[in-house]
């Protein structure tokens, strides 16, 4: 058989039906469901008298609307509550065995719990009505975000109609310099390829720097594939992946797992297989990054300055930069380190795993949050929260003056009560710095957990390498 990329191997193994000129029918091994993009899909099933074809391949949780205050305090927003109640009802009516409501010990951001609980596995096809489904590709699976009509389609048929995407290799050669995290890798990549550089493609991240990342770090990288416009991101499974899967509560165990691992060793891209595009980045060119604008590719090193819109080549770029600077309240050529911060958000499916919390805790241990800053930590799941508490990280954060919250999507998208006030400036470990994303008029700068932690202490951006 001809040499194939990892994506092609997974795709080929899941084709149910193909006809020339039509999208392929692809079987879906894991469907993750949350409260925001599913109610209309369940309604569609109900109206057509359809069932969920494979409840056993469907995992649901409540994450976007859930308040991050203590679980004993009721939900105040009745519209949010109605949406959460709808998921409760739908899970019961359609017989979903794996539903983790906001009180469950397995609850959390859907892209944190999928891999962490052992549902996401190498070689699988994974979908969710959420663009950051690309996260799961870190385990060596094909994971795509879909809309609500497709959620309904997968619930009814366990398949997805997809035109085969093209492939793109993003190779990061060499070892990461000290102080450069997985978040900086992906911000650097998006800065390089642009917010639509990956459109129509599945990105496979390769190279020594990627191989050297932990599973949590790899998930951070794959999470933001969509910010580069890609359909999905993926990383070949290796011993790091297999060791991770071995410790997941609901993953296969023992001889069954070891047999699977032998199969998974065949997944990586064959020597001689070709990608439609390849982009090469040298790890030595990466540094801690900060976004200055309102799209994730508007990014500069911490040692840099806010760009002058006149420095851009095209009229469209200049106008976009001018508009971004006006929205962000920044001046051309202002030093990034001189930008003062009002809020810190350490959380989101990008950076709310245990490695992220450990890294941030290491920066702040024994220090105090600046008196002009309000800082919060929102662990990615109830399990991450429990693990952090077992390690005493919650105390490190609380001692420094951080607010320690309950798991959820929180201020990543401003759907629950955690939002920025107009004009407030936030150093955020999330994935989108769009206008108004974290609240109307809110100003978001995307950074790594380490950089957010350092900014919390300093009150402005600061190079974590000198901190």
């Amino acid at each position, binding site marked *: 058989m001809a040499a194939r990329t990892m994506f092609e191997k997974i795709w080929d193994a899941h084709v149910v039906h193909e006809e020339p000129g039509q999208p392929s029918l692809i079987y879906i091994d894991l469907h993750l469901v949350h409260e925001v993009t599913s109610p209309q899909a369940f309604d569609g099933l109900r109206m057509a008298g359809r069932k969920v074809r494979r409840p056993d391949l469907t995992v649901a949780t409540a994450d*976007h609307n859930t308040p991050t205050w203590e679980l004993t305090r009721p939900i105040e927003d009745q519209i949010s509550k109605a949406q959460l109640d709808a998921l409760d009802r739908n899970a019961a009516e359609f017989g979903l065995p794996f539903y983790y409501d906001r009180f469950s010990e397995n609850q959390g951001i859907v892209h944190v719990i999928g891999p962490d609980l052992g549902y996401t596995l190498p070689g699988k096809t994974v979908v969710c009505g959420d*663009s950051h489904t690309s996260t799961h590709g870190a385990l060596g699976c094909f994971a795509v975000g879909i809309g609500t009509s497709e959620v309904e389609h997968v619930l009814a048929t366990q*398949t997805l109609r997809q035109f085969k995407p093209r492939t793109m290799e993003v190779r990061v050669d060499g070892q990461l310099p000290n102080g450069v995290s997985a978040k900086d890798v992906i911000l650097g990549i998006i800065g390089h390829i642009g*917010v639509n550089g990956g459109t129509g493609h599945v990105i496979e991240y390769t190279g020594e720097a990627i191989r050297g990342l932990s599973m949590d770090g790899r998930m951070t990288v794959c999470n933001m594939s969509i910010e580069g416009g890609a359909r999905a991101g993926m990383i070949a499974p290796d011993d790091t992946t297999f060791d991770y899967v071995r410790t997941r509560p609901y993953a296969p165990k023992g001889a069954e797992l070891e047999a699977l691992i032998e199969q998974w060793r065949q997944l990586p891209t064959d020597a001689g297989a070709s990608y439609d595009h390849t982009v090469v980045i040298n790890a030595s060119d990466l540094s801690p990054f900060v976004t200055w604008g309102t799209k994730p590719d508007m990014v500069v090193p911490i040692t840099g300055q806010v760009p002058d819109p006149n420095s851009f080549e095209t009229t469209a770029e200049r106008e976009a930069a001018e508009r971004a600077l006006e929205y962000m309240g920044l001046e051309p050529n202002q030093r990034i380190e001189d930008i003062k911060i009002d809020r810190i958000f350490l959380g989101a499916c990008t950076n709310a795993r245990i490695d992220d919390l450990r890294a941030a805790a290491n920066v702040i241990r024994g220090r105090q949050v600046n008196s002009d800053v309000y800082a919060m930590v929102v662990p990615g799941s109830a399990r991450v929260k429990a693990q952090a508490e077992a390690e005493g990280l919650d105390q490190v954060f609380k001692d420094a003056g951080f607010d320690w919250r309950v798991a959820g999507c929180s201020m990543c998208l401003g759907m629950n009560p955690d939002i920025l006030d107009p004009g407030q400036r936030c150093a955020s470990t999330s994935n989108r710095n*769009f206008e108004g994303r974290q609240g109307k008029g809110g100003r978001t700068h995307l950074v790594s957990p380490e950089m957010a932690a350092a900014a919390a202490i300093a009150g402005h951006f600061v190079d974590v390498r000198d901190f």
Partner: protein
Amino acid sequence: MEPFVQLEGVVAPLDAVNVDTDMIIPAVYLKSIERTGFGPNLFDRYRYNEDGSENLDFILNQGPYRSSKILVSGPNFGCGSSREHAPWALEDFGIRCIIAPSFADIFFNNCFKNGLLPLILPETDVRRIMDKAKDNPGFEITVDLEAKQVRDGDEEIVVDFEVDDFRRYCLLNGLDDIGLTLQHEDAIAAFEARQV
């Protein structure tokens, strides 16, 4: 799903690149469990002032643009989240076609599932339509999916376009994907049998 065959209507020019889904409809308005009713919150952050009154500087609040059926915008339209509420909000407002040089993948796909046509035209043609719509409030064009052509009344602008045959077929006939897929029930069952 309502078939999309030929659409004639006012073109609203939204001259911006990378219009994202948070601009189209912010997350705070995604709490409804219905498919309809999102139109009033389309471009909410731009359409309304702090006090809730209409921002008259925003294109969709101006004269004939209030009844726009077609939106023309810059590249990478619809980037960001998978929220189908974005095409739902556009449709609820009355817009059934978006013309741009390129679209983000998930948004592009979501449009077809709801009887909306995301139409990719070359940048120069997009610019001609944009400029004419800006200079002539109330400017109308016809998007003819049957003939794969966009044209204006005086036929100054006549552009033939390409759209994937399968997606065009589904739009022209208002076809629901699930029904089509369930015709392959045997193939799905056979695939599942091989997995065990």
